[in-house]
C-alpha cells in the first residue's frame, strides 16, 4: 500500500472519529500544510512506512485491518521500536489537526483567528485580596525607598 494510503488508516487509528460528538478523524487534517521542508516530508513518509512494516511484522496485520483494541496492543508490543516514528508522525498530525479551522470548530474551539473577535474573560472577585491586605506589607525596608 502507498504511504498516503497507510497514512490515512494510521491517522484514523491515532485519532478516530467520534460521530456522536461530530468529531473528525485524523485523516481529515492536511498534514502537507505543516510539512515545511522536503527533509521533513521524507522523514514523515519513512516513519509511516516503518510503522506499517512493524504492524505487519509484530501484529501480522495491516493498518487498514486494525481495530482500536489491536492498535492498543500494537502500541504496547512495539513501544520501543515505534517510539521515534510515532513521535515524528504524531507531532505532524497534532499540528495539522489542532490548527485546522473545521476541526477546531467541531471541537468547540472556534474556527477562526483570535483577532479581531477576542474573548470574554471573567474579571474576577478582587475581594479575594482581603487576607493579603490584612496581612500588611511584606517587602523589605531598605531605608530609602521613598
Amino acid at each position: 500500500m502507498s504511504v498516503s494510503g497507510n497514512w490515512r488508516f494510521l491517522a484514523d487509528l491515532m485519532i478516530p472519529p467520534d460521530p456522536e460528538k461530530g468529531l473528525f478523524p485524523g485523516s481529515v487534517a492536511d498534514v502537507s500544510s505543516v510539512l515545511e521542508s522536503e527533509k521533513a516530508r521524507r522523514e514523515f513518509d519513512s516513519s509511516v512506512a516503518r510503522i506499517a512494516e512493524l504492524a505487519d511484522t509484530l501484529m501480522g496485520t495491516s493498518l487498514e485491518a486494525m481495530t482500536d483494541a489491536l492498535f492498543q496492543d500494537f502500541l504496547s508490543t512495539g513501544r520501543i521500536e515505534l517510539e521515534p516514528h510515532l513521535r515524528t508522525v504524531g507531532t505532524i498530525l497534532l499540528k495539522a489537526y489542532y490548527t485546522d479551522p473545521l476541526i477546531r470548530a467541531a471541537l468547540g474551539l472556534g474556527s477562526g483567528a483570535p483577532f479581531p473577535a477576542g474573548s470574554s474573560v471573567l474579571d474576577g472577585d478582587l475581594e479575594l485580596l482581603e487576607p493579603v491586605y490584612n496581612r500588611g506589607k511584606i517587602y523589605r525596608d531598605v531605608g530609602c525607598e521613598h
Partner: protein
Amino acid sequence: MDADVIVIGAGAAGAAVSWRLSRTSLKVLCIEQGDFHNPLEYPSTRSDWELKKLSTHNPLPNVRNSAADYPINDDDSPIAVSNFNAVGGSTVLFSGHFPRFHPSDFFTKSLDGVGDDWPITYSDLEPYFEINDRMMGVAGLKGDTAYPEIPGMMPPVPLGLVGERLATGFNNLGWHWWPSYSAIVTKQHGGRAACINLGPCNTGCAQSAKSSVDVSYWPVALRQGVELLTQTRVTRIVQNSPETVDCVEAVGADGELRILRSRAVVIACNGVGTPRLLLHSRSDWAPDGLGNSSGQVGRNLMIHPLGYVEGIFEDDLASHLGPQGCCIASHEFYETDSGRDFVRGYSFQVLRGPGPLETALSGVLRREIPWGEGHHEGFRRRFGKTASMTAILEDLPHPDNRVELDPVRKDSSNIPAPKVTYALQPNTKRMMSHSLNRGRELMRAAGAFKTYAFGPVRETGWHLMGTTRMGTDERNSVVNRYGQSHDVRNLYIADSSVFVTSGAVNPTSTLQAVALWIADAVARDLGVEVL
C-alpha cells in the same frame, strides 16, 4: 555629524532613550537591525497561530533565523537565549508582565552579603518608573503589599476563572498574591484600543493593546523628530582616541557600509548583544574590547532560571483565555528568609493555560492524551483545565557566567556570534527546588488533582542582564551610575546589561526606568535640558 546622539537598538531601552532625548534640542538617530512589523500580520490574525509560534515567531533566534537575527551559541548553557530583533525588540514578543524590582534588589550585598549593591536605588528610579508607566500604558491594582505605592495604573487585566482559582489556593496557604502588573492597556490609551483578550500576547499583539515599544514609545519619538534607521546593523563602534568614540560603522540591507558620526553613542542591544558589540569593537586603545579595561564586559550574565509548574483541574477553568502571561503573581518568597536554605528569592507568575495544540502536544508527550479511541476524551479532560505558573528565580552574578565572541560562528554581516557560557549556581539550584515544591503545593491547595513541575526551562532566556554592570569601582564594573563607560566618556550603555543584580521579576519595567535615568544623564552631559 550625522546626529548628536546615536542610539543602537530600537527595543525596550533604545526606544525609551530615544523618546526621552527627543524632548531635548538634540538630534537623535537610532539604528536598528530589524524592521517594523505590521500588527495585522501577527499570528493571532490567523487560525494557525500556534504553528507560527513555533516558527516565524519562535522566541529563539536560532530557530527563526530571519535576516534581522544573529546566531547565538548557547550550547554551554542549560537556558537558550530568546530575543526578537525588530523595531520594538523583544517587547514585540514579551508577555507584558511588568512588575518593578523591589527596593531590596538594589542592596543585596548590604542586606544579604551576596551580589553587589547598585550605585542607584529604587527611590532614584521612582520618578522614571512613573514616566515609563505613563508612556507604556500599564494595568494593575494599587495597594500591593509587596511594593511601595505604585500610582496611576489602568484597571487590572481580568483574573478569569483560573486566576480566581489560584488566588483561592494562595489564600488557603496564607501566601501573598496580587493581580499582575501588565504592560497592557485595559482602557483606550495614547490612541491604542483596549485589550480584548486575544490570548497569544507572546506572538505579538494584533490589537496593539500590549505595550510593546513599537506602538507605545516609537510613534511619539518619531513624531518628535527621532530618525530611525531600520534594517541596518551596527558592526563596530570606532575609537580613535583614548577617551572618546568617533563613529559607528553600520551595514544596511543593501550591504553598503556606512560611517555615522555623533557626539555620543548609547548602546541598547540587550545583555547579549551589547557585550558582543563591545567585544567586537577592539582597537589599539581597547585591545580587549571597547570599554573593557576592567575585563568585566560579558561577565556576570544573569538569565533568570525559570521553574514551570502546572496543575490539572477537574472543572473547566477556561484557562486558555486571557492575556497569556498576565493574570496574577505572588511575591511570597521574594525576600530573603533566614529559615530557608538559600538567600534572596523568587516570584510566581501565573500564566494562562496552553492553547489547543500545545495542550495536545504536551498531553501526548506525557502519555496522558492517548492515541486511539481515548484521544478525544483525553484532550477534553485537559484543555481549559490546566493552570500554569512560572517561578522566576533571582540569579546571582557570577563572573564565569558570560558572553564571549564565538571563534567560529558568524552572522550574515560576518560579525562573530555571541557565545554564552552559563551554569546555575548552588544557591539557585536550592531555590529552584524550593520553588517547584511550593508551586506544586499551591496547585494542590487550589484543587488540582495532578501537578507537574520542572526547571530550569530551556527556551526561556529572555531576561539578559549584568554583562556590563554599573558600579563605582572601575576595576570591577563597566559603567558608572549614569550608564557612562568608565573608559570612554561619550559612550553609554542603557539596557539591562548594566544591572548589578537580577531581582526576581521580569526586568523590562526596571530596565526602561534605568534607560530613562541614563537618557537624562546623556542630556545633562551634552549640556541640554529635557523638556
